[in-house]
């Protein structure tokens, strides 16, 4: 579905990527992680053709982004930016959602149906002014107008920065829902707890290079990789690391609680 082959990007000295290759299959939920300036946002922009690779190729469903305009790719890829205010350009919630739909579809009936569906899914009232909504609600609106066109791929570039925990979870739950229905999701995120909770696969960038690519839990066990990328592992993972043997493969509070209870019962049994 998404295939990068030996992609380099070096038009801009602040944003360089070197020799990146990977492919992402339909329905995956992948996170791109790394420190500020590691090249995460650049990589996202290469995926939907906003940036073109200097060498190598990026293919989306067989389309080479080098020869396809981003506005054409928009039918397949929804791109959620950090700041919703750059996307929202209409005076009511309904118009904002319609704006995106009408760009890509002509059938009136179909458009009306999609609008209704998204409005009820997000619980928006159609006539609200987007600029009276809170930051978190505006981010949800931006996501709603992307989802309205039902893209096959969702790219999220730090979608939860500036949101509080509640708003963050709201956004992520919708994304998870879309993923379950078959949407491929690629997300840039700084919050490792969120990455751990939602992503199945993690790509680690450092200094413009892909230094690790694998199943989320196994990547969070690679201490040297995390250190090289200046990442702070999720708390349960670092706690498990400190506790050492017997605590491998523990990543959530539930798992940790269970294991500790088991061990303390064992200890009691021995004492008895």
């Amino acid at each position, binding site marked *: 579905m998404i295939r990068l082959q030996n992609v380099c990007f070096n038009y801009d000295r602040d944003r360089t990527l070197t020799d990146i290759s990977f492919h992402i299959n339909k329905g995956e939920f992948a996170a791109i992680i790394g*420190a*500020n*300036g590691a090249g995460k946002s650049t990589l996202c922009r290469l995926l939907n053709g906003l940036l073109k690779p200097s060498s190598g190729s990026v293919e989306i469903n067989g389309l080479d982004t080098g020869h396809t305009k981003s506005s054409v790719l928009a039918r397949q890829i929804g791109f959620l930016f950090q700041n919703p205010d750059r996307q929202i350009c209409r005076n009511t919630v309904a118009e904002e959602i319609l704006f995106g739909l009408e760009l890509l579809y002509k059938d009136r009936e179909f458009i009306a149906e999609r609008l209704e569906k998204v409005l009820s899914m997000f619980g928006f009232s159609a006539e609200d002014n987007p600029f009276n909504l*809170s*930051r*978190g609600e505006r981010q949800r609106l931006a996501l709603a107008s992307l989802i309205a066109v039902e893209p096959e791929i969702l790219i999220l570039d730090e979608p939860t*920065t*500036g*949101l*509080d*925990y*509640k*708003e963050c979870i709201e956004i992520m739950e919708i994304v998870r829902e879309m993923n379950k229905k078959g949407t491929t999701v690629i997300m840039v995120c*700084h*919050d*490792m*707890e969120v990455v751990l909770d939602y992503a199945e696969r993690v790509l680690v960038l450092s200094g413009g290079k892909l230094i690790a690519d694998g199943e989320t839990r196994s990547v969070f066990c690679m201490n040297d990789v995390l250190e090289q990328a*200046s*990442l*702070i592992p*999720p*708390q*349960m993972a*670092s*706690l498990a690391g*400190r*506790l050492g043997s017997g605590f491998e493969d523990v990543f959530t*509070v539930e798992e*940790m*609680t269970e294991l*500790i*209870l088991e*061990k*303390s019962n064992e*200890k009691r049994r021995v004492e008895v």
Partner: protein
Amino acid sequence: MIKISNLTFRYKDGRKNALDNINLSINKGDFLGITGTSGAGKTSLTYAINGVIPHHYNGDYYGSVRIEGEDTFDTSPSALSLKIGSVFQDIDTQLVSSVVEDEILYGLENFSVPAVEIEQRISSALEAVGISSLRYRSIESLSGGQKQKVALAAILALRPKILLLDEPTSELDPESSVQFYRILRELNENHGITIIVVEQKIMLLSEFAKNILVMDTGKIVINGSVREVIDRSSLLEEIGINCPRVTSLSNRLKEEGVYTGSVCINVEEAEKMVRSIIDD
């Protein structure tokens, strides 16, 4: 040092009170973290402390804010800036110059700091945040984290007694955020600067702050030491504030009856806790 009594504020055209009967005193040398969901009134509270409310934003204002006995209602934000240095969220609008050195100079010139003192002030401010090497760089060429430090240095050069920061690390990655907070801690511990910081990431506050204030819908919900606040994690979660995972873990273990100590606020403590449960 700062005393807020019965402060209520509603922005002009606002539908509800942004600040609702706030009573708070902040002592010299404190490191206070302010947290809460968005729209809870955190930024408004910082505006009330540095005088932007009521001098820049109009609205219904009741109660009083006193900085070392001086009422902010009668003092302009510029005059208050002699005591309180503020660093805002949007770094691009905050920086006024094209070169780092000039950025530090800007406030010093405004304050008419004597020329003989200026060189020393600039170099010590840059040193305090560890960016002496950036002195002659153009601001445009800096990364977000570096700009954040320049903004802090520009404020520090004015030698404020109180430092007020609104989500200073919102654009930074976790590692750079921790670095930034280390600088704040050093300023607080070694230079006696009172620090008030608005922060969403409670993990950073639990590690670096001395006290935490939790706001919700314009009111203060909890105000106490880090441990006192984190201890009430169920209330925090109800409001929509995410507690550190180690805190949830210690709470779970308490519920299960295998742990009776105090709540954990960082990984070190959690390790000790687990070892005390499972080791002999």
